[in-house]
């Protein structure tokens, strides 16, 4: 009898200790992962509406709770999305129609697997020798599902919209990859922890290589359909977008997936260019070693996302040809120039 309870206790403790309180898991679930992403996404969407309203002489969401600036409005919107009926057209490929938005949402969080939040090895999700390369590679997976959504919709307008979206995918992936990897020749490493450790000297890579920072910023805006490049959303408002056949919560997943991808990229930019947890040196212990540095990174990433959201108030929408010509004619030369700048700085001996 004693042995049976003992075994049950051991199993329960094992589940708690190795699944929930296992450090890599709560790194993936709690702080840069799912919970933090949802909180940040809700805050950023609210901020986006309020900032655009301030600039454009409006008020923004206010009616539900005027004292808090209408902050519960997004929860109300979420409830409304959840209540809405999901209409599945009879012609669609059912499995891929349902799976593609979910897979896109999940895979947009996947770069968090390779992102360290502290320099203490016991809190890393994976060993960190090629983490920057892995994070950049994983971030390129989720846009495939936009094309898959348009194909599964089985509507020629959606297929056209997905094709146009894939033009942008091809254009921005190159920019994002080159500009994020342009720190590599400067520091001779793919390891995000080493990259952050170098920036404790005060020489943030965003200051050493501002071209790469600017380029990565614009590429993230393009990839997550941020405002000047909000082409898939604007086509869905007509009937030519990749999400035209989607409704209800499935459409909400597309919108939220874009914001979560932007969150993952922002954490990556904060680590690579803005010093990560730079002013603070992690010490042993879960609070000092994991929570405080990760909160510093989160604050930096939220500031990046807020600047990206602020652009909604200023810019108008680009057409597809404008976005593509900006990508191929301006941003890719800038990305290559940023790479060259890194090589030059390595040549004159900036690197450690």
């Amino acid at each position, binding site marked *: 009898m004693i042995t049976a309870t003992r075994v049950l206790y051991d199993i329960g403790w094992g589940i708690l200790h190795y699944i929930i309180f296992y450090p890599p898991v709560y790194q993936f679930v709690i702080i840069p992962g799912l919970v933090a992403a949802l909180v940040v996404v809700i805050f950023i969407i609210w901020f986006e509406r309020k900032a655009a309203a*301030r*600039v454009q002489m409006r008020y923004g969401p206010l009616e539900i709770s*005027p004292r808090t600036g209408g902050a519960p409005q997004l929860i109300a919107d979420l409830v409304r999305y959840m209540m809405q009926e999901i209409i599945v057209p009879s012609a669609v490929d059912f499995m891929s129609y349902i799976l593609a938005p979910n897979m896109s949402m999940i895979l947009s969080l996947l770069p968090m697997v390779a992102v360290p939040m502290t320099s203490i090895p016991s809190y890393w999700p994976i060993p960190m020798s090629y983490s920057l390369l892995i994070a950049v590679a994983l971030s390129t997976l989720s846009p495939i599902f936009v094309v898959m959504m348009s194909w599964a919709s089985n509507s020629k307008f959606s297929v056209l919209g997905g094709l146009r979206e894939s033009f942008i995918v091809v254009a921005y992936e190159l920019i994002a990859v080159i500009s994020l990897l342009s720190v590599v020749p400067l520091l001779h490493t793919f390891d995000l922890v080493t990259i952050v450790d170098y920036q404790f000297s005060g020489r943030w890579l965003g200051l050493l290589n501002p071209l790469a920072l600017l380029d990565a910023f614009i590429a993230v805006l393009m990839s997550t359909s941020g405002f000047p490049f909000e082409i898939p959303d604007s086509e869905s408002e007509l009937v030519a977008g990749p999400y035209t056949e989607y409704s209800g919560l499935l459409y909400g997943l597309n919108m939220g997936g874009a914001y979560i991808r932007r969150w993952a990229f922002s954490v990556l930019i904060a680590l690579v260019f803005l010093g990560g947890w730079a002013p603070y040196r992690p010490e042993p212990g879960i609070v000092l070693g994991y929570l405080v540095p990760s909160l510093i990174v989160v604050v930096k990433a939220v500031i990046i996302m807020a600047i990206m959201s*602020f652009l909604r108030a200023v810019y108008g929408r680009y057409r597809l040809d404008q976005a593509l010509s900006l990508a191929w004619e301006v941003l890719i030369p800038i990305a290559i120039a940023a790479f060259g700048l890194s090589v030059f700085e390595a040549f004159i001996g900036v690197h450690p």
Partner: protein
Amino acid sequence: MPARPSLKRVPRATFLGRAIAGNLGALIVGVKYFIDPNRITLLYPHEYIKLRQGYRGYIVLIFDKCISCASCARICPARAMKMVTMEVKDKKLNRAMKKKYPVINYNRCIFCGYCVDVCPTEALYHVPYHDLVYLNMQDMILNVEEFQKEPEFVTAKEGVPVTYVFDEKRGLVKVSVEESSNQGSSSQPAGGGGSS
């Protein structure tokens, strides 16, 4: 002779000038309004535009002044105002007699104010508000008793009165009525619809 307008020139000669000047200018304007917002949207039930006296709002009849001349019903271009016959007791002659009094149908009224203008004894007047809601269309056809009562201005209970003022630097600015009256004659109200 009007002054020549001076156009602000943006350096658009080269590609770099175009890109940097255009984007930076837009961002600076955005940051300026983000820090110091100029919100001109009217939050309707919580704020309402204070209209001045003489605004052609709803029409009220003063029963004792009416001499049943029917000028108002004759001049009404929308045929909203009609005369109805009522049994009243005449004070001078001291006997019951039939007289005609105007009633109004707000389904048809276009608030032109001709009836108020033409009334020889000033028996009709406007109230300076116009945003009332009726539950059905039958309620919008008033009888003589209802026509004599001033309609209840419900918005004034909930909201604060505001008015729009033209500012040289910021353009149209929304201020509350007390502030605008403190500013005196330097600012002129620019909004408020067709205030006459």
